[in-house]
């Protein structure tokens, strides 16, 4: 049975606009122009327990708004949302005791005191029994390797260190659902990898449902089997990562460098060819022509110096998708 169900959720905001021009500031004091921004329009989806879903879209698409609605912080104007049998904004207290949130841009730790104190506070806020708390803390501390950081005031931690503590704080009460809003923002490669590993492990081990919004496509590729794409408040795609690739970037690409410049000629099996001096870029459809025969074909037709089959770059796929859908 589905754990999260959204049905035709809509939310709009009033945004004040300052009139343009030199006296705009002054005029704005007397005459307010407001614009209605439709952040979400009839969003519907279902998520089952234990799923790890990537939620992507350009800036301002409505990702965070959806997360806020699902965590009970915002009340939508219309639509229905049932999470574990509750409507988040109606039964906020009951709902939030079952979820955890990590907002990459915000902190839930107390800035001036060590993380350990914040954890102790969370223990009381979520009413976690002492033994269960110790066990869980130990688990998280060793998994995230934050033992040495616990006694340091949070303001003195680096971003990566703090983010590990944030994630631990969000999972202390063993939530059934974890919302992660850009958790890897600003992290270095090592911290990102460590965080991803941990999230994957936690998802498998405890069956926590995770919904991850991010702009980092490597996050999605490493973690999510299912992707939802939102743009201008509308859900544009919902399905597997493979399906997304299939749909928006069905071709694969080979880069070849020739020993001597060769005249442009049609390559057998290629969908599209581009030549720049000695560099050839060839696109082909792997469903029609297998990669190895494409390589053989190239070797036959061109005096090859080097050859490279490019991995599909998911960033480019997404960019292409945003372009195609005009979002």
């Amino acid at each position, binding site marked *: 049975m589905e754990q999260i169900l959204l049905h035709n959720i809509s939310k709009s905001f009033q945004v004040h606009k300052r009139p343009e021009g030199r006296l705009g500031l002054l005029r704005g004091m007397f005459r307010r122009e407001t614009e209605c921004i439709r952040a979400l329009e009839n969003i519907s989806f279902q998520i089952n327990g234990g799923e790890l879903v990537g939620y992507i879209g350009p*800036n301002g698409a409505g990702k965070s708004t959806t997360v806020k609605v699902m965590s009970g912080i*915002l009340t939508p104007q219309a639509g229905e949302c049932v999470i574990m049998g509750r409507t988040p904004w109606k039964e906020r207290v009951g709902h939030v005791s079952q979820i955890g949130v990590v907002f990459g841009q915000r902190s839930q730790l*107390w800035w001036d*005191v060590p993380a350990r*104190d914040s954890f*102790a*506070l969370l223990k009381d*806020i979520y009413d976690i029994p002492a033994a269960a708390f110790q066990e869980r803390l130990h688990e998280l501390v060793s998994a995230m390797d934050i033992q040495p950081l616990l006694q340091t005031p949070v303001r003195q931690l680096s971003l990566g260190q703090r983010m590990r503590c944030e994630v631990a704080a969000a999972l202390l009460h063993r939530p059934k659902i974890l919302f992660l809003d850009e958790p890897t923002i600003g992290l270095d490669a090592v911290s990102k990898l460590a965080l991803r590993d941990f999230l994957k492990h936690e998802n498998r081990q405890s069956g926590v449902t995770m919904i991850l919004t991010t702009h980092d496509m490597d996050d999605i590729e490493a973690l999510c089997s299912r992707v939802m794409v939102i743009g201008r408040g509308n859900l544009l795609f919902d399905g597997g990562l493979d399906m997304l690739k299939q749909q928006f970037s069905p071709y694969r690409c080979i880069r070849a460098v020739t020993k001597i410049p060769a005249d442009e000629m049609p390559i057998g099996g290629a969908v599209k060819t581009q030549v720049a001096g000695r560099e050839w870029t060839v696109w082909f459809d792997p469903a029609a022509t297998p990669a190895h025969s494409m390589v053989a074909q190239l070797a036959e037709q061109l005096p090859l110096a080097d050859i490279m089959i490019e991995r599909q770059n998911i960033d480019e796929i997404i960019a292409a998708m945003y372009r195609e859908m005009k979002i």
Partner: protein
Amino acid sequence: MRRTWKAGLSLFKIRAAEGLQYRLAALSGATISIFWALIEVVILSVFFRYGAKTADSVNSLTLAQGVSYVWLGQLMVMLQMPGVDTDLHQKITNGDIGIELCRPLDLYWHWFARSAAGKVNTFALRGGLVVVCGTLLTLLGFDRVGLGAPQSFLHFALFLVSVFSAFLFSGAWSMFLTSIRIPVTWGDGPINLITVTGSVLSGTYLPLQLWPDAMQSFLKLQPFASFLDTPARLFVGTVPIKTGLLSILLQLVWTCAFVLLGKLIMQHGLKSVIVQGG
């Protein structure tokens, strides 16, 4: 409810830990308060000496009582500041209120505990230093500028009770201001205006007993007397015990009134809350 209590206690602990890290801030704050107290003592002394028709008392407040009142004022003012807890204010303006709403607690009592805990810190540390300094001045023989002894043991006991209800009142008042602030995107001006009005009417700037006679009954009944005037009158002994008891009751009534009002406004405000930022 039990959970909110436990969390509230825990909040007191964490805020104490936070406050104790900044000993220097407490010390410099106390210096300012002591300086203020001394200036007010000088002004009062000059007023009593040259302005008053009879030198011993004005509106049945003697100079010595007035001086003690001023010292207590510098202690009790810690409960009035800040109107809206600085942390909470920040959370409202930058959208971190979102995280607060993700806690399985009633937001009103959660924040009540949080801002009250913040006040206990300054009250105990900074206010404590002020009281110690005022008492030391008296003990060292500067009894004309120092904090005097309470009227009687019973008065002192009631004073302590009244300080505690002043503390509860300050929490309710703070939360009232905070709830007003929640749905407002910009504008601390109106809130600052209300805060200053409250401070003036509490007697912090001029003991309420020295105000015009015609205003006295209003001054005694208005809510802000709970901040300072009620406990201070009990300490210096310008009210009989019976009236003192009634004024403590009044403190509690105002506290309940502001709790109800704050809760109502907050409930209303949270419906339309906009969590700022992405």
